[in-house]
Protein backbone atom coordinates (compact mmCIF):
# COMPACT_ATOMS: atom_id res chain seq x y z
CA UNK A 1 0.00 0.00 0.00
CA UNK A 2 1.36 3.38 -0.93
CA UNK A 3 0.54 6.78 0.45
CA UNK A 4 -2.19 8.41 -1.60
CA UNK A 5 -1.21 10.99 -4.18
CA UNK A 6 -1.61 14.59 -3.12
CA UNK A 7 -4.30 15.01 -5.77
CA UNK A 8 -6.17 11.81 -4.91
CA UNK A 9 -9.91 12.26 -4.93
CA UNK A 10 -11.92 11.92 -1.74
CA UNK A 11 -13.90 8.67 -1.50
CA UNK A 12 -15.64 9.40 1.79
CA UNK A 13 -16.66 12.91 2.78
CA UNK A 14 -18.06 14.02 6.13
CA UNK A 15 -19.57 17.43 5.45
CA UNK A 16 -20.58 19.31 8.63
CA UNK A 17 -22.08 16.13 10.06
CA UNK A 18 -24.05 16.22 13.33
CA UNK A 19 -25.93 13.34 14.93
CA UNK A 20 -28.49 13.46 17.71
CA UNK A 21 -30.06 10.55 19.52
CA UNK A 22 -33.33 10.84 21.40
CA UNK A 23 -32.92 10.47 25.17
CA UNK A 24 -35.10 10.96 28.25
CA UNK A 25 -33.89 14.54 28.68
CA UNK A 26 -34.45 15.50 25.06
CA UNK A 27 -32.19 15.00 22.05
CA UNK A 28 -28.61 14.13 22.93
CA UNK A 29 -25.93 15.37 20.56
CA UNK A 30 -23.38 12.64 19.88
CA UNK A 31 -21.49 14.04 16.90
CA UNK A 32 -21.14 17.76 16.33
CA UNK A 33 -20.16 19.49 13.13
CA UNK A 34 -17.60 16.98 11.91
CA UNK A 35 -15.97 17.47 8.52
CA UNK A 36 -13.16 15.41 7.01
CA UNK A 37 -12.35 13.36 3.99
CA UNK A 38 -10.93 9.93 3.37
CA UNK A 39 -8.98 9.83 0.13
CA UNK A 40 -8.75 6.99 -2.36
CA UNK A 41 -6.64 4.13 -0.98
CA UNK A 42 -6.04 5.99 2.21
CA UNK A 43 -5.96 4.31 5.60
CA UNK A 44 -7.61 6.57 8.18
CA UNK A 45 -7.94 5.66 11.85
CA UNK A 46 -10.39 7.34 14.18
CA UNK A 47 -9.49 7.41 17.87
CA UNK A 48 -11.12 9.03 20.88
CA UNK A 49 -12.67 8.26 24.27
CA UNK A 50 -15.09 5.33 24.44
CA UNK A 51 -18.70 6.22 23.81
CA UNK A 52 -17.73 9.36 21.91
CA UNK A 53 -19.54 8.46 18.71
CA UNK A 54 -16.76 6.83 16.68
CA UNK A 55 -18.92 3.86 15.84
CA UNK A 56 -21.73 6.23 14.87
CA UNK A 57 -19.50 7.73 12.20
CA UNK A 58 -18.60 4.31 10.84
CA UNK A 59 -22.26 3.29 10.82
CA UNK A 60 -23.09 6.30 8.68
CA UNK A 61 -20.51 5.31 6.06
CA UNK A 62 -21.70 1.69 6.23
CA UNK A 63 -25.25 2.90 5.55
CA UNK A 64 -26.84 1.82 8.83
CA UNK A 65 -27.79 5.36 9.85
CA UNK A 66 -28.17 8.90 8.60
CA UNK A 67 -26.76 12.12 10.04
CA UNK A 68 -29.22 14.45 11.76
CA UNK A 69 -27.71 17.32 9.81
CA UNK A 70 -24.90 17.61 7.30
CA UNK A 71 -24.00 15.01 4.67
CA UNK A 72 -21.99 11.83 4.45
CA UNK A 73 -20.89 11.29 0.87
CA UNK A 74 -19.50 8.25 -0.89
CA UNK A 75 -17.76 9.21 -4.12
CA UNK A 76 -19.68 12.46 -4.05
CA UNK A 77 -23.12 10.91 -3.55
CA UNK A 78 -25.05 10.61 -0.28
CA UNK A 79 -24.69 7.15 1.26
CA UNK A 80 -27.70 4.93 0.64
CA UNK A 81 -28.14 1.62 2.51
CA UNK A 82 -25.42 -0.91 3.25
CA UNK A 83 -23.84 -2.52 0.21
CA UNK A 84 -21.16 -4.94 -0.93
CA UNK A 85 -18.84 -2.09 -2.00
CA UNK A 86 -18.19 -1.44 1.70
CA UNK A 87 -16.94 -4.39 3.71
CA UNK A 88 -17.64 -3.96 7.40
CA UNK A 89 -15.71 -5.66 10.19
CA UNK A 90 -17.80 -5.57 13.32
CA UNK A 91 -16.48 -5.55 16.86
CA UNK A 92 -18.25 -8.84 17.53
CA UNK A 93 -17.11 -10.38 14.18
CA UNK A 94 -20.54 -11.84 13.40
CA UNK A 95 -19.29 -15.03 11.78
CA UNK A 96 -22.31 -17.17 10.89
CA UNK A 97 -22.33 -20.04 13.39
CA UNK A 98 -24.48 -22.28 11.19
CA UNK A 99 -21.99 -22.23 8.32
CA UNK A 100 -18.57 -23.86 8.15
CA UNK A 101 -15.44 -21.77 7.62
CA UNK A 102 -15.56 -22.37 3.88
CA UNK A 103 -19.29 -21.56 3.67
CA UNK A 104 -18.82 -18.39 5.71
CA UNK A 105 -16.24 -17.07 3.26
CA UNK A 106 -18.40 -18.10 0.31
CA UNK A 107 -21.57 -16.51 1.73
CA UNK A 108 -21.24 -13.17 -0.02
CA UNK A 109 -20.17 -14.79 -3.28
CA UNK A 110 -23.46 -16.68 -3.51
CA UNK A 111 -25.56 -13.52 -3.32
CA UNK A 112 -27.17 -11.98 -6.37
CA UNK A 113 -25.41 -8.67 -5.68
CA UNK A 114 -22.00 -10.27 -6.26
CA UNK A 115 -22.94 -12.38 -9.26
CA UNK A 116 -19.94 -11.09 -11.19
CA UNK A 117 -17.62 -12.96 -8.80
CA UNK A 118 -19.62 -16.21 -8.76
CA UNK A 119 -17.43 -17.88 -11.39
CA UNK A 120 -14.28 -17.40 -9.31
CA UNK A 121 -15.98 -18.47 -6.09
CA UNK A 122 -13.93 -21.55 -5.29
CA UNK A 123 -10.66 -19.88 -6.19
CA UNK A 124 -11.46 -16.84 -4.03
CA UNK A 125 -12.48 -18.98 -1.07
CA UNK A 126 -9.34 -21.12 -1.32
CA UNK A 127 -7.16 -18.04 -1.64
CA UNK A 128 -8.45 -16.35 1.49
CA UNK A 129 -8.45 -19.55 3.50
CA UNK A 130 -4.77 -19.90 2.66
CA UNK A 131 -4.00 -16.24 3.33
CA UNK A 132 -5.72 -16.32 6.71
CA UNK A 133 -4.30 -19.70 7.69
CA UNK A 134 -7.72 -21.34 7.88
CA UNK A 135 -7.20 -24.18 5.36
CA UNK A 136 -6.97 -26.83 8.04
CA UNK A 137 -10.35 -25.70 9.38
CA UNK A 138 -12.18 -25.41 6.06
CA UNK A 139 -15.04 -27.64 7.16
CA UNK A 140 -15.07 -26.75 10.87
CA UNK A 141 -17.90 -24.89 12.56
CA UNK A 142 -17.03 -21.46 13.97
CA UNK A 143 -17.68 -22.70 17.52
CA UNK A 144 -14.50 -24.75 17.20
CA UNK A 145 -12.36 -21.71 16.35
CA UNK A 146 -10.37 -19.45 18.66
CA UNK A 147 -11.11 -15.72 18.86
CA UNK A 148 -8.22 -14.88 16.56
CA UNK A 149 -9.37 -17.41 13.98
CA UNK A 150 -12.94 -16.10 14.04
CA UNK A 151 -11.54 -12.67 13.47
CA UNK A 152 -9.53 -13.89 10.48
CA UNK A 153 -12.62 -15.65 9.18
CA UNK A 154 -14.65 -12.44 9.39
CA UNK A 155 -11.86 -10.62 7.58
CA UNK A 156 -11.71 -13.29 4.87
CA UNK A 157 -15.48 -13.12 4.41
CA UNK A 158 -15.38 -9.35 4.07
CA UNK A 159 -12.46 -9.51 1.59
CA UNK A 160 -13.96 -12.26 -0.53
CA UNK A 161 -16.46 -9.96 -2.22
CA UNK A 162 -13.64 -7.52 -3.03
CA UNK A 163 -15.07 -4.37 -1.45
CA UNK A 164 -13.38 -1.10 -2.31
CA UNK A 165 -13.84 0.13 1.24
CA UNK A 166 -13.05 -1.59 4.46
CA UNK A 167 -14.82 -0.22 7.54
CA UNK A 168 -13.40 -1.71 10.71
CA UNK A 169 -14.86 -1.16 14.17
CA UNK A 170 -12.22 -2.10 16.74
CA UNK A 171 -11.67 -5.40 14.97
CA UNK A 172 -8.65 -6.37 17.06
CA UNK A 173 -9.92 -5.14 20.41
CA UNK A 174 -10.72 -8.55 21.87
CA UNK A 175 -7.47 -10.22 20.83
CA UNK A 176 -4.38 -10.87 22.93
CA UNK A 177 -1.31 -8.75 22.19
CA UNK A 178 0.51 -11.33 20.02
CA UNK A 179 -2.51 -12.19 17.91
CA UNK A 180 -3.27 -8.52 17.56
CA UNK A 181 0.18 -7.74 16.16
CA UNK A 182 -0.05 -10.68 13.79
CA UNK A 183 -3.46 -9.51 12.58
CA UNK A 184 -2.20 -5.98 12.00
CA UNK A 185 0.66 -7.28 9.87
CA UNK A 186 -1.70 -9.54 7.96
CA UNK A 187 -3.98 -6.58 7.29
CA UNK A 188 -1.06 -4.51 6.00
CA UNK A 189 0.11 -7.30 3.70
CA UNK A 190 -3.38 -7.83 2.25
CA UNK A 191 -3.77 -4.10 1.71
CA UNK A 192 -0.38 -4.01 -0.02
CA UNK A 193 -1.63 -6.67 -2.43
CA UNK A 194 -5.07 -5.18 -3.11
CA UNK A 195 -5.31 -1.48 -2.35
CA UNK A 196 -8.42 -0.49 -0.47
CA UNK A 197 -9.71 2.59 1.27
CA UNK A 198 -9.87 1.89 4.99
CA UNK A 199 -11.61 3.51 7.95
CA UNK A 200 -10.54 1.98 11.25
CA UNK A 201 -12.08 2.74 14.63
CA UNK A 202 -9.68 1.94 17.44
CA UNK A 203 -8.80 2.65 21.06
CA UNK A 204 -5.16 1.96 20.53
CA UNK A 205 -2.84 4.84 19.68
CA UNK A 206 -0.09 2.40 18.61
CA UNK A 207 -2.44 0.56 16.29
CA UNK A 208 -3.62 3.80 14.73
CA UNK A 209 -0.08 4.99 14.04
CA UNK A 210 1.22 1.64 12.87
CA UNK A 211 -1.51 1.14 10.28
CA UNK A 212 -2.66 4.56 9.11
CA UNK A 213 -1.86 7.38 6.74
CA UNK A 214 -3.78 9.73 8.97
CA UNK A 215 -5.25 9.61 12.45
CA UNK A 216 -8.41 11.54 13.29
CA UNK A 217 -8.53 12.34 17.02
CA UNK A 218 -12.06 12.88 18.29
CA UNK A 219 -13.07 14.81 21.39
CA UNK A 220 -15.32 13.74 24.25
CA UNK A 221 -19.07 13.86 23.60
CA UNK A 222 -20.45 15.67 21.69
CA UNK A 223 -17.71 14.56 19.36
CA UNK A 224 -15.81 17.14 17.39
CA UNK A 225 -12.53 16.72 15.60
CA UNK A 226 -9.71 17.53 18.01
CA UNK A 227 -6.90 17.11 15.53
CA UNK A 228 -6.02 15.27 12.35
CA UNK A 229 -2.50 13.88 12.54
CA UNK A 230 -0.48 12.83 9.47
CA UNK A 231 1.55 9.66 9.91
CA UNK A 232 4.69 10.22 7.82
CA UNK A 233 6.09 6.66 7.78
CA UNK A 234 6.23 5.00 4.36
CA UNK A 235 4.75 1.56 3.68
CA UNK A 236 5.63 -1.26 3.85
CA UNK A 237 5.94 -0.96 7.62
CA UNK A 238 7.09 -3.59 10.03
CA UNK A 239 7.11 -3.98 13.78
CA UNK A 240 10.54 -2.37 14.22
CA UNK A 241 8.75 0.90 13.48
CA UNK A 242 7.41 0.81 17.03
CA UNK A 243 10.95 1.27 18.37
CA UNK A 244 11.92 4.35 16.34
CA UNK A 245 12.09 7.75 18.06
CA UNK A 246 9.74 9.28 15.50
CA UNK A 247 7.09 6.67 16.34
CA UNK A 248 7.63 7.40 20.05
CA UNK A 249 7.14 11.13 19.56
CA UNK A 250 3.96 10.67 17.57
CA UNK A 251 2.70 8.21 20.15
CA UNK A 252 3.24 10.65 23.05
CA UNK A 253 1.58 13.44 21.12
CA UNK A 254 -1.50 11.34 20.33
CA UNK A 255 -1.65 9.85 23.82
CA UNK A 256 -1.60 13.33 25.26
CA UNK A 257 -4.51 14.37 23.07
CA UNK A 258 -6.54 11.28 23.83
CA UNK A 259 -5.88 11.41 27.57
CA UNK A 260 -7.08 15.01 27.70
CA UNK A 261 -10.32 13.95 26.06
CA UNK A 262 -10.78 11.08 28.50
CA UNK A 263 -10.28 13.58 31.33
CA UNK A 264 -12.83 15.93 29.76
CA UNK A 265 -15.28 13.07 29.49
CA UNK A 266 -14.74 12.15 33.15
CA UNK A 267 -15.41 15.77 34.18
CA UNK A 268 -18.61 15.70 32.13
CA UNK A 269 -19.71 12.55 33.89
CA UNK A 270 -19.09 14.16 37.28
CA UNK A 271 -21.02 17.25 36.27
CA UNK A 272 -23.94 15.15 35.05
CA UNK A 273 -24.09 13.22 38.30
CA UNK A 274 -24.14 16.40 40.44
Amino acid at each position, binding site marked *: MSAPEAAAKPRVTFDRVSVEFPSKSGPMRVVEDVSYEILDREFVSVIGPSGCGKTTMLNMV*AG*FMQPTSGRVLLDGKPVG*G*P*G*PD*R*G*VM*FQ*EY*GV*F*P*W*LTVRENIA*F*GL*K*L*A*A*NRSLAGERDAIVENYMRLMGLEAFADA*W*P*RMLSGGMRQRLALA*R*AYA*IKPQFLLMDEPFGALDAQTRTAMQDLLLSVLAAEGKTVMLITHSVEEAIYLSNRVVVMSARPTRIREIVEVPFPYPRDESLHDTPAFGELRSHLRDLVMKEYAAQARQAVRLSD
Partner: protein
Amino acid sequence: MPPIPRSPMLRNLLLVASPWVLVVLLWYAVAWSGLVNPALIPTPHQVAAKGWELLTRSRLPMDILMSTQRVAIGVAFGIALAVPIGFLLGWYKGVRRFLDPLLNFFRALPPIALIPLVIVYFGIGELAKVAILFYASFFAGVIVMYEGIAQISPIYVRVARTLGAADGEIFLRVIVPLTVPHMLTALRVALGVAWATLVASELIAAQQGLGALIQDASSFFQLDIIYVGIICIGLIALAMDLVLRAIARRMVAWQERIA
Protein backbone atom coordinates in the same frame (compact mmCIF):
# COMPACT_ATOMS: atom_id res chain seq x y z
CA MET B 1 -17.58 -54.27 43.29
CA PRO B 2 -17.99 -55.62 39.76
CA PRO B 3 -15.15 -54.76 37.41
CA ILE B 4 -15.77 -51.67 35.29
CA PRO B 5 -16.32 -52.86 31.71
CA ARG B 6 -13.63 -51.73 29.31
CA SER B 7 -15.81 -51.30 26.28
CA PRO B 8 -17.07 -47.70 26.28
CA MET B 9 -20.35 -48.80 24.71
CA LEU B 10 -21.04 -51.27 27.45
CA ARG B 11 -20.10 -48.69 30.06
CA ASN B 12 -22.46 -46.19 28.50
CA LEU B 13 -25.24 -48.74 28.48
CA LEU B 14 -24.71 -49.44 32.17
CA LEU B 15 -24.66 -45.72 32.91
CA VAL B 16 -27.94 -45.17 31.10
CA ALA B 17 -29.60 -48.26 32.60
CA SER B 18 -28.56 -47.70 36.20
CA PRO B 19 -31.16 -45.06 37.20
CA TRP B 20 -33.92 -47.25 35.74
CA VAL B 21 -32.70 -50.23 37.70
CA LEU B 22 -32.61 -48.01 40.77
CA VAL B 23 -36.22 -46.93 40.31
CA VAL B 24 -37.37 -50.54 39.90
CA LEU B 25 -35.44 -51.57 43.02
CA LEU B 26 -36.99 -48.70 44.95
CA TRP B 27 -40.40 -49.77 43.74
CA TYR B 28 -39.79 -53.33 44.99
CA ALA B 29 -38.51 -51.97 48.26
CA VAL B 30 -41.68 -49.95 48.85
CA ALA B 31 -43.95 -52.80 47.72
CA TRP B 32 -42.25 -55.36 49.97
CA SER B 33 -41.47 -53.14 52.93
CA GLY B 34 -44.87 -53.67 54.46
CA LEU B 35 -45.26 -49.95 54.99
CA VAL B 36 -47.96 -49.75 52.34
CA ASN B 37 -50.91 -52.06 51.90
CA PRO B 38 -49.69 -54.55 49.23
CA ALA B 39 -53.06 -54.32 47.51
CA LEU B 40 -52.28 -50.68 46.72
CA ILE B 41 -48.89 -51.29 45.11
CA PRO B 42 -48.55 -53.94 42.43
CA THR B 43 -44.97 -55.11 42.06
CA PRO B 44 -42.97 -54.38 38.90
CA HIS B 45 -43.19 -57.97 37.67
CA GLN B 46 -46.96 -58.00 38.17
CA VAL B 47 -47.25 -54.82 36.15
CA ALA B 48 -44.92 -56.21 33.50
CA ALA B 49 -46.99 -59.39 33.22
CA LYS B 50 -50.20 -57.38 32.94
CA GLY B 51 -48.59 -55.15 30.34
CA TRP B 52 -47.53 -58.16 28.29
CA GLU B 53 -51.02 -59.63 28.53
CA LEU B 54 -52.65 -56.38 27.42
CA LEU B 55 -50.15 -55.98 24.62
CA THR B 56 -50.45 -59.46 23.16
CA ARG B 57 -54.03 -60.40 23.83
CA SER B 58 -55.98 -57.27 24.49
CA ARG B 59 -56.52 -53.60 23.76
CA LEU B 60 -53.08 -52.06 24.42
CA PRO B 61 -51.80 -51.89 20.80
CA MET B 62 -54.95 -50.05 19.75
CA ASP B 63 -54.72 -47.73 22.76
CA ILE B 64 -51.13 -46.87 21.91
CA LEU B 65 -52.01 -46.30 18.29
CA MET B 66 -54.97 -44.05 19.06
CA SER B 67 -53.11 -41.97 21.61
CA THR B 68 -50.03 -41.59 19.45
CA GLN B 69 -52.19 -40.58 16.53
CA ARG B 70 -54.03 -37.93 18.59
CA VAL B 71 -50.78 -36.55 19.96
CA ALA B 72 -49.21 -36.50 16.50
CA ILE B 73 -52.15 -34.68 14.92
CA GLY B 74 -52.54 -32.21 17.80
CA VAL B 75 -48.83 -31.40 17.86
CA ALA B 76 -48.56 -31.20 14.07
CA PHE B 77 -51.28 -28.58 13.87
CA GLY B 78 -50.15 -26.84 17.05
CA ILE B 79 -46.57 -26.47 15.83
CA ALA B 80 -47.62 -25.59 12.29
CA LEU B 81 -49.34 -22.57 13.77
CA ALA B 82 -46.86 -21.91 16.60
CA VAL B 83 -43.86 -21.56 14.26
CA PRO B 84 -45.13 -18.64 12.16
CA ILE B 85 -46.88 -16.92 15.08
CA GLY B 86 -43.91 -17.41 17.38
CA PHE B 87 -41.64 -16.10 14.65
CA LEU B 88 -43.72 -12.93 14.16
CA LEU B 89 -43.84 -12.35 17.90
CA GLY B 90 -40.13 -12.86 18.28
CA TRP B 91 -39.06 -10.88 15.27
CA TYR B 92 -41.35 -7.86 15.49
CA LYS B 93 -41.29 -6.08 18.83
CA GLY B 94 -44.52 -4.25 18.01
CA VAL B 95 -46.43 -7.46 17.45
CA ARG B 96 -45.05 -8.82 20.71
CA ARG B 97 -46.17 -5.80 22.76
CA PHE B 98 -49.57 -6.13 21.20
CA LEU B 99 -50.15 -9.86 21.57
CA ASP B 100 -48.02 -10.89 24.53
CA PRO B 101 -50.64 -10.29 27.27
CA LEU B 102 -53.26 -12.20 25.30
CA LEU B 103 -50.87 -15.08 24.80
CA ASN B 104 -50.01 -15.24 28.48
CA PHE B 105 -53.68 -15.13 29.40
CA PHE B 106 -54.48 -18.19 27.30
CA ARG B 107 -51.28 -19.97 28.18
CA ALA B 108 -52.15 -19.88 31.87
CA LEU B 109 -55.44 -21.73 31.35
CA PRO B 110 -55.05 -25.44 32.08
CA PRO B 111 -56.39 -27.49 29.15
CA ILE B 112 -58.39 -29.63 31.57
CA ALA B 113 -60.43 -26.57 32.59
CA LEU B 114 -61.42 -26.10 28.97
CA ILE B 115 -62.87 -29.56 28.56
CA PRO B 116 -66.51 -28.59 29.27
CA LEU B 117 -66.29 -25.84 26.67
CA VAL B 118 -64.59 -28.09 24.18
CA ILE B 119 -67.40 -30.61 24.58
CA VAL B 120 -69.98 -27.90 24.00
CA TYR B 121 -68.30 -26.61 20.85
CA PHE B 122 -66.61 -29.67 19.38
CA GLY B 123 -68.71 -32.53 20.73
CA ILE B 124 -67.16 -35.68 22.13
CA GLY B 125 -65.52 -37.10 19.01
CA GLU B 126 -61.91 -37.17 17.84
CA LEU B 127 -62.01 -33.48 17.04
CA ALA B 128 -62.53 -32.55 20.69
CA LYS B 129 -59.53 -34.59 21.87
CA VAL B 130 -57.27 -33.29 19.16
CA ALA B 131 -58.45 -29.73 19.89
CA ILE B 132 -57.25 -30.04 23.51
CA LEU B 133 -53.88 -31.38 22.39
CA PHE B 134 -53.63 -28.68 19.74
CA TYR B 135 -54.30 -26.03 22.36
CA ALA B 136 -51.67 -27.41 24.72
CA SER B 137 -48.97 -27.83 22.09
CA PHE B 138 -49.63 -24.52 20.39
CA PHE B 139 -49.12 -22.45 23.52
CA ALA B 140 -46.12 -24.46 24.67
CA GLY B 141 -44.56 -24.21 21.21
CA VAL B 142 -45.29 -20.57 20.54
CA ILE B 143 -43.59 -19.41 23.75
CA VAL B 144 -40.44 -21.44 23.11
CA MET B 145 -40.38 -20.24 19.53
CA TYR B 146 -40.74 -16.58 20.26
CA GLU B 147 -38.34 -16.51 23.19
CA GLY B 148 -35.79 -18.16 20.94
CA ILE B 149 -36.33 -15.88 17.96
CA ALA B 150 -36.26 -12.77 20.16
CA GLN B 151 -32.77 -13.75 21.30
CA ILE B 152 -31.32 -13.95 17.79
CA SER B 153 -28.62 -11.31 17.52
CA PRO B 154 -29.30 -8.66 14.85
CA ILE B 155 -25.59 -8.69 13.99
CA TYR B 156 -26.04 -11.52 11.47
CA VAL B 157 -28.61 -9.59 9.49
CA ARG B 158 -26.35 -6.52 9.49
CA VAL B 159 -23.37 -8.57 8.32
CA ALA B 160 -25.44 -10.13 5.55
CA ARG B 161 -26.56 -6.68 4.42
CA THR B 162 -23.00 -5.40 4.23
CA LEU B 163 -22.17 -8.42 2.07
CA GLY B 164 -24.92 -7.37 -0.32
CA ALA B 165 -27.80 -9.63 0.70
CA ALA B 166 -31.29 -8.60 -0.41
CA ASP B 167 -34.32 -9.08 1.91
CA GLY B 168 -35.27 -12.44 0.40
CA GLU B 169 -31.71 -13.70 0.68
CA ILE B 170 -31.52 -12.57 4.30
CA PHE B 171 -34.69 -14.48 5.08
CA LEU B 172 -33.60 -17.71 3.37
CA ARG B 173 -29.90 -17.69 4.18
CA VAL B 174 -29.83 -16.08 7.63
CA ILE B 175 -33.19 -16.12 9.36
CA VAL B 176 -34.32 -19.61 8.37
CA PRO B 177 -31.13 -21.35 9.55
CA LEU B 178 -31.27 -19.41 12.82
CA THR B 179 -34.91 -20.42 13.28
CA VAL B 180 -34.47 -24.17 12.78
CA PRO B 181 -33.04 -24.94 16.24
CA HIS B 182 -35.88 -23.07 17.91
CA MET B 183 -38.42 -24.94 15.80
CA LEU B 184 -36.95 -28.23 16.93
CA THR B 185 -36.97 -27.16 20.58
CA ALA B 186 -40.57 -25.97 20.25
CA LEU B 187 -41.51 -29.32 18.75
CA ARG B 188 -39.84 -31.22 21.59
CA VAL B 189 -41.50 -29.11 24.28
CA ALA B 190 -44.90 -29.37 22.54
CA LEU B 191 -44.63 -33.14 22.31
CA GLY B 192 -43.83 -33.37 25.99
CA VAL B 193 -46.75 -31.13 26.94
CA ALA B 194 -49.10 -32.99 24.59
CA TRP B 195 -48.32 -36.36 26.18
CA ALA B 196 -48.80 -34.76 29.57
CA THR B 197 -52.21 -33.49 28.48
CA LEU B 198 -53.23 -36.73 26.84
CA VAL B 199 -55.12 -38.22 29.78
CA ALA B 200 -57.12 -35.02 30.14
CA SER B 201 -58.02 -35.03 26.47
CA GLU B 202 -59.14 -38.64 26.69
CA LEU B 203 -61.39 -37.81 29.61
CA ILE B 204 -63.80 -36.79 26.90
CA ALA B 205 -65.65 -40.02 26.34
CA ALA B 206 -62.76 -41.88 24.77
CA GLN B 207 -63.23 -45.61 24.11
CA GLN B 208 -59.62 -46.13 23.13
CA GLY B 209 -56.33 -44.58 24.02
CA LEU B 210 -53.93 -44.78 26.93
CA GLY B 211 -55.88 -42.14 28.84
CA ALA B 212 -59.08 -44.15 28.31
CA LEU B 213 -57.26 -47.28 29.46
CA ILE B 214 -56.23 -45.57 32.67
CA GLN B 215 -59.71 -44.21 33.29
CA ASP B 216 -61.43 -47.51 32.62
CA ALA B 217 -58.99 -49.22 34.97
CA SER B 218 -59.55 -46.66 37.66
CA SER B 219 -63.30 -47.34 37.66
CA PHE B 220 -62.53 -50.97 38.45
CA PHE B 221 -59.63 -50.24 40.77
CA GLN B 222 -57.22 -52.16 38.50
CA LEU B 223 -54.05 -50.58 39.76
CA ASP B 224 -51.75 -52.75 37.66
CA ILE B 225 -53.44 -51.55 34.48
CA ILE B 226 -53.15 -47.94 35.59
CA TYR B 227 -49.42 -48.49 36.04
CA VAL B 228 -49.17 -50.07 32.60
CA GLY B 229 -50.91 -47.04 31.05
CA ILE B 230 -48.73 -44.55 32.84
CA ILE B 231 -45.51 -46.36 31.95
CA CYS B 232 -46.58 -46.59 28.31
CA ILE B 233 -47.17 -42.85 28.11
CA GLY B 234 -43.77 -42.17 29.65
CA LEU B 235 -41.96 -44.63 27.40
CA ILE B 236 -43.53 -43.41 24.17
CA ALA B 237 -42.86 -39.78 25.08
CA LEU B 238 -39.27 -40.69 25.91
CA ALA B 239 -38.80 -42.58 22.64
CA MET B 240 -40.19 -39.69 20.60
CA ASP B 241 -37.94 -37.25 22.39
CA LEU B 242 -34.88 -39.41 21.76
CA VAL B 243 -35.69 -39.61 18.06
CA LEU B 244 -36.23 -35.85 17.86
CA ARG B 245 -32.99 -35.21 19.67
CA ALA B 246 -31.10 -37.42 17.27
CA ILE B 247 -32.63 -35.52 14.36
CA ALA B 248 -31.79 -32.19 16.02
CA ARG B 249 -28.18 -33.26 16.54
CA ARG B 250 -27.84 -33.84 12.83
CA MET B 251 -29.69 -30.74 11.71
CA VAL B 252 -28.06 -28.25 14.04
CA ALA B 253 -24.64 -29.76 14.52
CA TRP B 254 -23.24 -26.24 14.38
CA GLN B 255 -24.72 -25.27 17.72
CA GLU B 256 -22.52 -24.68 20.73
CA ARG B 257 -24.66 -26.75 23.08
CA ILE B 258 -27.24 -29.25 22.17
CA ALA B 259 -30.06 -29.58 24.66
